[in-house]
C-alpha cells in the first residue's frame, strides 16, 4: 500500500523473493508495472530560492565566535577583555546584518 500517496515502494520490505539480491546487483522491481506515479514537482519556496543562491564567504560568523570567546575569557579573568569582546560581538553582528545575503 502506498505510504505517501505519491509513489509505491517497489520493495515489500524484504518479503518478496523477486527482490532478493543476485551477486552485486539487485533484482528489485521485476514485477509487472501497474502504475507509474508522477514525481512531485512542488517544493518549498525557500528551496527554489536557495537553489540559485551562490555560496558565500562571510567573516562575520567567526568574528561573532571570537567575540563570544573574549566575553567568556573576560568574565573569567578581566572585565576589560569582556568589554572588548562585547565590542567585537557588536561589530560582527552589525557586519553580519549589513552584508548582502547572496554576495
Amino acid at each position, binding site marked *: 500500500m*502506498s505510504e505517501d500517496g505519491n*509513489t509505491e515502494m517497489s520493495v515489500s520490505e524484504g518479503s518478496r523473493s523477486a527482490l532478493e539480491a543476485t551477486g552485486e546487483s539487485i533484482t528489485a522491481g521485476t514485477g509487472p508495472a501497474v502504475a507509474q506515479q508522477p514525481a*512531485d514537482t512542488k517544493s518549498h519556496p525557500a528551496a527554489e530560492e536557495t537553489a540559485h543562491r551562490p555560496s558565500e564567504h562571510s567573516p*562575520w560568523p567567526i568574528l561573532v*565566535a571570537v567575540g563570544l570567546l573574549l566575553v567568556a575569557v573576560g568574565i573569567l579573568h578581566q572585565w576589560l577583555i569582556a568589554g572588548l569582546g562585547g565590542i567585537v560581538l557588536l561589530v560582527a553582528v552589525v557586519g553580519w546584518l549589513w552584508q548582502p545575503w547572496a554576495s
Partner: protein
Amino acid sequence: MASTVGAWPRPQWYEEGIWGWITSTNHKRIGVLYLSTSFVFFFAAGAMAMMMRTQLARPDNSFLTPQEYNQIFTMHGTTMVFLFGMPVLAGFANYLVPLMIGARDMIFPRLNALSYWTYLAGSLLLYSSFLAGGSPDAGWFSYAPLTESPFSKGMGMDYWSLSIILLGISSIAGAVNVLVTVLTLRAPGMTFNRLPLFVWATFVNQFIILVALPSLTAAAVMLYLDRHFGTAFFNPANGGDPLLWQHLFWFFGHPEVYILILPAFGIISEVIPVFARKPIFGYSFIAYSSVAIGLLSFAVWAHHMFAVGMSLTAQAVFSFTSFTIAVPTSVKIFNWLATLWGGSIRLRPPMLFALGFIGLFVIGGLSGVALAVVPFDWQVTDSYFVVGHLHSVLFGGTAFGVFAGIYYWFPKITGRMLNERLGKLNFWLLVVGFLLAFQPMHVLGILGMPRRIWTYSPNMGWNELNLVSTIGAYIIGIAILVFVGNFIISVRGGKEAGADPWDAWTLEWAASSPPAAHNFERLPEVRSRRPLWDQKHPDRADYLARPLE
C-alpha cells in the same frame, strides 16, 4: 523528465586557501571542519583514556596523582561527549543532509559557520583551563555541591560552565539550522516518506538537541551564578538543592545518549541495505522508531537518580519508561537483521563496522535494560558496571557507527577510497580492544569496584580484570593508529573513488566526489526512496513496482 537545477559556475573562492576555509559558509567545508576538529579531540580524549587505564593497570599505582586523575577523567568524559560525539555527528549532518535531500546548502549558511566557530571557541576555552591553573575535576556531569565554590576552589569549574554555555549556543544554532533545512529545502519529490533514514535520524536528533540542551545551558549559568554571585540554586548550605542540578543535568543527559546514538542508527540504516544489496526492511518502522525514541528520551532521565531517595512511585514510573524505550531500539535492530536476511552481503569495511555496531551495541543496550531494574541499579550505581555499560553504548554504538560512516562516505568527501586491508585490520583490532577493555568493567562493577577511583588495594580481587581492561585500551589505541595511517595513506594516494563507488542509491552519490561547491549539476528525479537506483535502472525503478497487497 529529470528536474534540472541549473548549471552553476564554480566560485573562485572555492579554490582559495586558509581564508577560504575560515570564512566559508559552504556546508561541506563546515562539515569537514567539524569532522576534522572532532577527531583531533577524539585523539586527545583517547590519550587521556590510555593514561587512566595505565594508572589502573595495577594496584597502588602512582603513574598519576589523584588530582591529575580527577582532571583527566573529567576532561576525557567532557571531551568525548561534547567535543567529539556531538560535533562528529554534526559534521556528518552538515556534509550529508543537504546532499541527501537535494539541496544546495543549509538554509542559514552563516549560522552554520557560527555553530562551528562557537564550538571551536568553547573547546579552546575548555582546554585553556590546563594553562590557567587546572582543568575541571568533578566529572563530566559536574554534580553539585561538589562543583560549588567551597568544594572546587580553582577555576576549573568556571571554565567548564562557560565552555558548556558556548557549546550549548553552538549546538542549539546548529539544530535550528538542520531542522529548518530539512523542513524547507528538500528537492521536489523528496517527501518525508522518501527521506533517507540518516536524515530522519538526524532530524529527530536535532529536535532532541533543541529541547534538551537549554536545560544544561541554564544549569551551567546557574552554577556560575552560585559560584560567583551569591545565588544558592544547588548548595544546600545556603538553602539550595543539589538534586535540582541532577534533574537539570539528566533532563539533558539522558536524551544526550540518544543525541549520540540516533545519527549512528541512521548511518547503519544507510550502510546495511547498500552492502546487503537489498532495500531496507521496514523503512517506516525504522523512521518512526526514531521519533518514538526521541519522545521517550525525555521521560527516562531520573533512572540516573534511583539511588538519591526518590519515591517508589517515581522509581516505578522511570523504571517502566526506561524499559519501554528499549522497544523502538529493538525494532531497529530487528529490521536491520531482516534486511541482512537473504541479502547478498559484501563484507567491505563500512559493512563490517555496521555489523560490529549491531553486535556490540546490543551488549550496551542489554546492560542498560538491566540498569532500569531498580534493585539492580541500587547495587551497581556508581560502580564500574555503569562505566562498562556507557562505554558499550557509546563506543560499541556511536564510535562504530562513526567509523562505518567514515569508511562509507570518505570516498564522497575526498574522492579517494580508504585502504580496505587496513580498514579490516582497523575493524578487528577495535572489536578485540572493545571486548577486552569494556566487558571486564561489568564484572568489576559487580565485584564492587567504584567508578572514578584513582587506585585500589591489591587484595580487592580486581587486579587481573583491570589489567585485561588496560590491555584492551592499548589495543584500541593501536586500532586508532591504524586508522590514522590508513587515512594519511589514502588521502595522499588512495584509489580514485568516482562518484558512486558502492553502487548506492541515495542522492549524495549522484554528485561528483568530492561534490562541487553547489553540489549538483543535475538532480535525479525523486520518485521513490531510492532515486539513484531508479536512475540507474529505469526498467526496474522502484516506482514501477507493484504495490503491496
